[in-house]
């Protein structure tokens, strides 16, 4: 130990730790010393009570078989002493070094592994020093019952951010701001940016990590815009890539993002006006994640914090992550976005799944004034997913709440008549949606629970307009499929349509067809019924925001009879997103019959149109070509997605049109290849300018070709130019 500390005023971090120790019953301060070397700026020796199972056999010297004692001294070694400093917990020198989840520092001694990532974040996210001390105690007790390695209940270090760059109290922010040189050329590491409103004057600051420096005076320091309200109403979080090293880099990202997704507004004066509080500050803090949740290197995100209260008096100011928009009322959002639901065609949203996607979409639309919502989810909320779900901070008990309950609670704050149909959500939601009479409801299915989807969606007797949305590829993309009127086109059609579209769209293909070997799906939720994927929460936010925007438009303007396909894909510029939205018309459905050999055949609208078009062009002559699409053997369903025609001309004679398959073979094979074999050759089509059903030639062709399909069904479509109908025959070789 170094010199006794009695005569020295405790630094802030030590003082905070001592306050926590004094208020906890299971530990007490037994010694304290000031720096003795560079590695120990200050040391507190804290004795922890370690609870053993009541009948534990202790050795003669009162230790468990692994050498844990009922009272364990732990040295809290403060390497640094500012307010952000977290001590290193060091166990006694003779502590059993062979235990798992323990590292032995050659200079300090045995150190329990409390977290993955910086222990500094434990202070921020695990309840300050109280949680930090409790965690040390829990580690000791887990060790005492030999439970550090146990398949069911073993110790798991808490995953946290790397906290070197985190700012968690207004006092320290201001302290850093005051120390930051007035310059904008950064030499050092970017921490964040702060804007402080003082009356009408907005001053922006750059927050730097200790030791950073700036070289020039900063004209940009008067920049008034830092945060924005994005269209679905949530405060945008911007992905910051690791190359952001200066204020300009950050501002470029913000501008880019705002230009794409948001309206640039001077938020702070609005916030002040709403809250009537004297001062507010928004700090954008770059957080580096401990683990790369995706396989990419982009592991830094920027999260806006709001510091409210009197910032001249750090003791009373509060800092909180702005995602909850506690300071942003519905009125404010409406004024900024000019959003109104008066006269909206669809005023109710039913969410099947209130997780990372459904929760965000529900919350976003609610902030924009969505009048009514039903939410169903099978799962309970887990607080470590706070940001991802955007649920309100229902302190203490939120971890045991159903997600749908939390979402409904949150949305009610914004005036949405939100109802949670929790539990498995099945019965209650079914009651609300069944019958098909209520078309004034948008049903958004975001659930990853096949069980719930099976119950609700496959039945096909739901009222309202059904939509399906999901993230893809670790949050690189997302889709929104909104079915057409009377469930036509259906989601299956829209999936097939997307596949077909992706054949000619490299970017879309990269998410629609790609099977990334790194992709991991994780079973979560009750009974592990749901699947999800690791992804960056900022990507999730941006994608959910896009889905909200599209839904908002469809609900307000009316979804029409067509289906809608919307894909959001990560842009080439980091932090940007590209959305493509398409309408898809009605699918021509050929029900299962003898003529289709029991197959259901779905001919997508573009194919129907193209067939009619070639028929018209052919005039009195027949037109013909090949068919490409999907074959789903499990459900015995064929979806025709594309016509392939001869490059010279698909037009034949009045009575005959030969489909020159050898000539088309290369085109078809290329399509198959480009679709990663998702699409395949299905058969042929031709027109009957004079009307009429299949000719004997057609039937013999059908049989002949079916024999060559290697067991796959052969489809023949005939466009009756007189009646406008499409006739369908499917032949499957009996052998």
């Amino acid at each position, binding site marked *: 130990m170094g010199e006794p500390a009695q005569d020295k005023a405790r630094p802030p971090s030590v003082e905070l730790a001592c306050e926590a120790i004094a208020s906890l019953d299971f530990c007490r301060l037994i010694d304290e010393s000031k720096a003795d070397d560079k590695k120990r700026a200050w040391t507190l020796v804290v004795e922890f009570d370690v609870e053993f199972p*009541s009948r534990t056999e202790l050795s003669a010297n009162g230790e468990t078989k692994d050498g844990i004692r009922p009272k364990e001294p732990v040295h809290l070694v403060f390497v640094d002493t500012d307010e952000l400093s977290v001590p290193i917990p060091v166990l006694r020198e003779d502590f059993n070094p062979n235990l798992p989840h323990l590292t032995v520092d050659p200079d300090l001694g045995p150190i329990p592994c409390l977290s993955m990532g910086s222990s500094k974040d434990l202070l921020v996210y695990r309840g300050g020093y109280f949680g930090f001390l409790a965690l040390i105690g829990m580690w000791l007790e887990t060790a005492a019952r030999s439970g550090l390695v146990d398949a069911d*209940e073993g110790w798991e270090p808490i995953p946290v951010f790397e906290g070197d760059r985190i700012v968690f109290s207004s006092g320290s922010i201001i302290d850093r701001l005051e120390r930051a040189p007035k310059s904008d050329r950064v030499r050092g590491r970017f921490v964040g940016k702060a804007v402080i409103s003082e009356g009408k004057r907005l001053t922006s600051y750059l927050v730097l990590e200790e030791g950073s420096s700036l070289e020039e005076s900063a004209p940009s320091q008067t920049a008034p815009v830092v945060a924005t309200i994005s269209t679905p109403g949530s405060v945008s979080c911007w992905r910051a890539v690791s190359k952001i090293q200066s204020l300009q880099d950050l501002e470029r990202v913000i501008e880019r993002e705002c230009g794409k997704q948001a309206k640039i507004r001077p938020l702070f004066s609005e916030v002040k006006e709403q809250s009537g509080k004297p001062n507010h500050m928004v700090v954008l803090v770059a957080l580096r994640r401990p683990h790369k949740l995706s396989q990419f290197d982009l592991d830094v995100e920027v999260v806006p914090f709001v510091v409210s209260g009197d910032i001249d008096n750090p003791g009373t100011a509060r800092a909180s992550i702005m995602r909850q928009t506690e300071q942003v009322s519905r009125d404010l959002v409406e004024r900024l976005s000019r959003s109104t639901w008066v006269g909206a065609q669809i005023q109710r949203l039913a969410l099947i799944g209130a997780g990372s996607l459904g929760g965000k979409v529900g919350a976003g639309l609610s902030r924009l004034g969505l009048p009514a919502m039903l939410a169903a989810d099978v799962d309970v909320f887990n607080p*470590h997913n706070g940001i991802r779900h955007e649920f309100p901070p229902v302190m203490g*008990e939120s971890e045991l709440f159903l997600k749908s309950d939390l979402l409904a609670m949150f949305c009610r704050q914004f005036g949405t008549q939100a109802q*949670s149909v*929790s539990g498995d959500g099945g019965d209650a939601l079914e009651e609300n949606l069944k019958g098909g009479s209520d078309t004034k409801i948008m049903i958004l299915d975001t659930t990853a629970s096949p069980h719930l989807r099976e119950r609700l969606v496959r039945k096909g007797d739901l009222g309202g307009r059904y939509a399906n949305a999901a993230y893809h590829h670790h949050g690189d993309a997302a889709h929104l499929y909104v079915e057409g009127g009377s469930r036509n086109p259906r989601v299956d059609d829209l999936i097939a349509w997307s596949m077909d579209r992706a054949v000619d769209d490299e970017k879309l293909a990269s998410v629609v067809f790609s099977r990334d070997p790194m992709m991991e799906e994780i079973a979560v939720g009750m009974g592990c019924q749901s699947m*999800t994927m690791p992804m960056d929460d900022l990507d999730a936010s941006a994608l959910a925001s896009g889905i909200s925007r599209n839904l908002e438009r469809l609900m307000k303007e009316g979804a029409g009879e067509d289906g809608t396909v919307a894909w959001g894909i990560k842009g080439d510029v980091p932090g940007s997103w590209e959305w493509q939205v398409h309408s898809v018309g009605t699918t021509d459905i050929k029900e299962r019959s003898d003529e289709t050999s029991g197959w259901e055949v779905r001919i997508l609208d573009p194919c129907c149109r193209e067939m009619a078009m070639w028929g018209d062009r052919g005039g009195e002559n027949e037109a013909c070509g090949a068919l490409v699409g999907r074959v789903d053997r499990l459900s015995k369903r064929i979806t025709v997605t594309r016509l392939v025609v001869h490059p010279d001309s698909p037009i034949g004679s009045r009575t005959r049109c030969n489909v020159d398959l050898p000539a088309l073979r290369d085109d078809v094979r290329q399509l198959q290849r480009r679709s990663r074999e998702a699409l395949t050759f299905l058969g042929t089509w031709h027109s009957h300018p004079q009307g009429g059903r299949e000719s004997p030639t057609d039937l013999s062709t059908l049989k002949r070709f079916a024999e060559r399909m290697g067991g796959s069904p052969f489809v023949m479509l005939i466009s009756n130019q007189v009646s406008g109908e499409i006739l369908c025959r499917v032949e499957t070789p009996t052998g």
Partner: protein
Amino acid sequence: MTAKVTYFPVANGDMTLIQIEEGTRNDPMRKSILVDCKLDMDGGANCDVVHEFRTRLPIDEKGRPFVDVFCLTHPDQDHILGFKKHFHTGPIADYKDENALADRKIYIKEMWSSPIVFRRAKRQKEEGESFCPDAQAWQKEAKRRVKLWRQNNAGKDEVGNQLKLFGKDCDNNGENKNADLEDITVLSGGDAFCAMELGNGSQVEIKTLGPLDHGGVDGDEEEASLAKNRSSIIVQALLYKDSGQADPVKLLLGGDAAVTVWEKLWETFGDDADDRRLEYDILLAPHHCSWRSLSHGSWSDCEEKGGESCKVSEDAESALSQARKGAYILSSSWPVKGDDGDPPSIGAKRRYVKIVKSDRFLCTGETPNEKNPRPIEFLVEHDGVVKNTKAASAAAAVSVSEGAMSETAGHG
């Protein structure tokens, strides 16, 4: 997998929750037994017991909170307070509660009730005096379920209608009023039964000690004596964390049973070396650490006059002394003060501290401190119970942290 028992700080009153569980709150692998409740405090205790209790409860597939079993040891208000407000009564089909989860009624899959305990409690009341409204609501619900059994209704075995009756319901003439309900009657000293279990061997087994039957020719006299002595359901609960648990954790719960009851229990079960029904890892000190559970005298008389009132019944004390190695004794009461108050009685505490070490005597009103009492939670381990204090501290700390909801992780 966790097996745990929680004692809530309800001042002078009892409320114990036994749980075996796995997974999240709406995981079907969660089961719970509630023994007594006191959900509306009589002031003073600085703990939101309703919140603490409700957040521990499992919820079913329809989002309804429930307990698998609710055992009412006896119908005193400090053991049933808040029942009407917080629990669903009537057929489960009538459950229509669209409140937020925090306010939804809790339904009871199976009730454990004792008509004879009610009968004896009634006998102690003044003419015209009735049970508290919560006890009346309990009684009405129990009678509804009994009726289904008597009518052999097809729904009698359904969740929400299930029932166990503890002890024979003998009137003053010794006639068992519930002779036709043998199938659902649990007799003191009878075989142990499994109250709940999960697939991996985690289970709670119950051995019944009370209510005591009155005996033989002196039935009426003995019945009067038992009535005076705060008749209660008394059980030894055996908790198995999993199939690897060779020696279960034993809880002894005795409601408000007074000295005579414990004497009789010692007489009946004291020499049973095999069954050891009085043995415990945790004893809930009867009647909130009352002197009257150990002595025929009153504690105030003992303090003032000494003599007989200070005399402890050897048999009663023996019955309550069957502590296993490292056992705890809990007083579910206000803090135990060094005065002539009773319950809790400092005299009783001193006797209990002789049985277990002083650090093993805990008072719900004093843990972790008098100012901010919190539920005392014990986890079941293969070699006994362990107090789960630090997890609670961490949870409490996180719940007040501004960043509590801010952590992100890789799934969801």
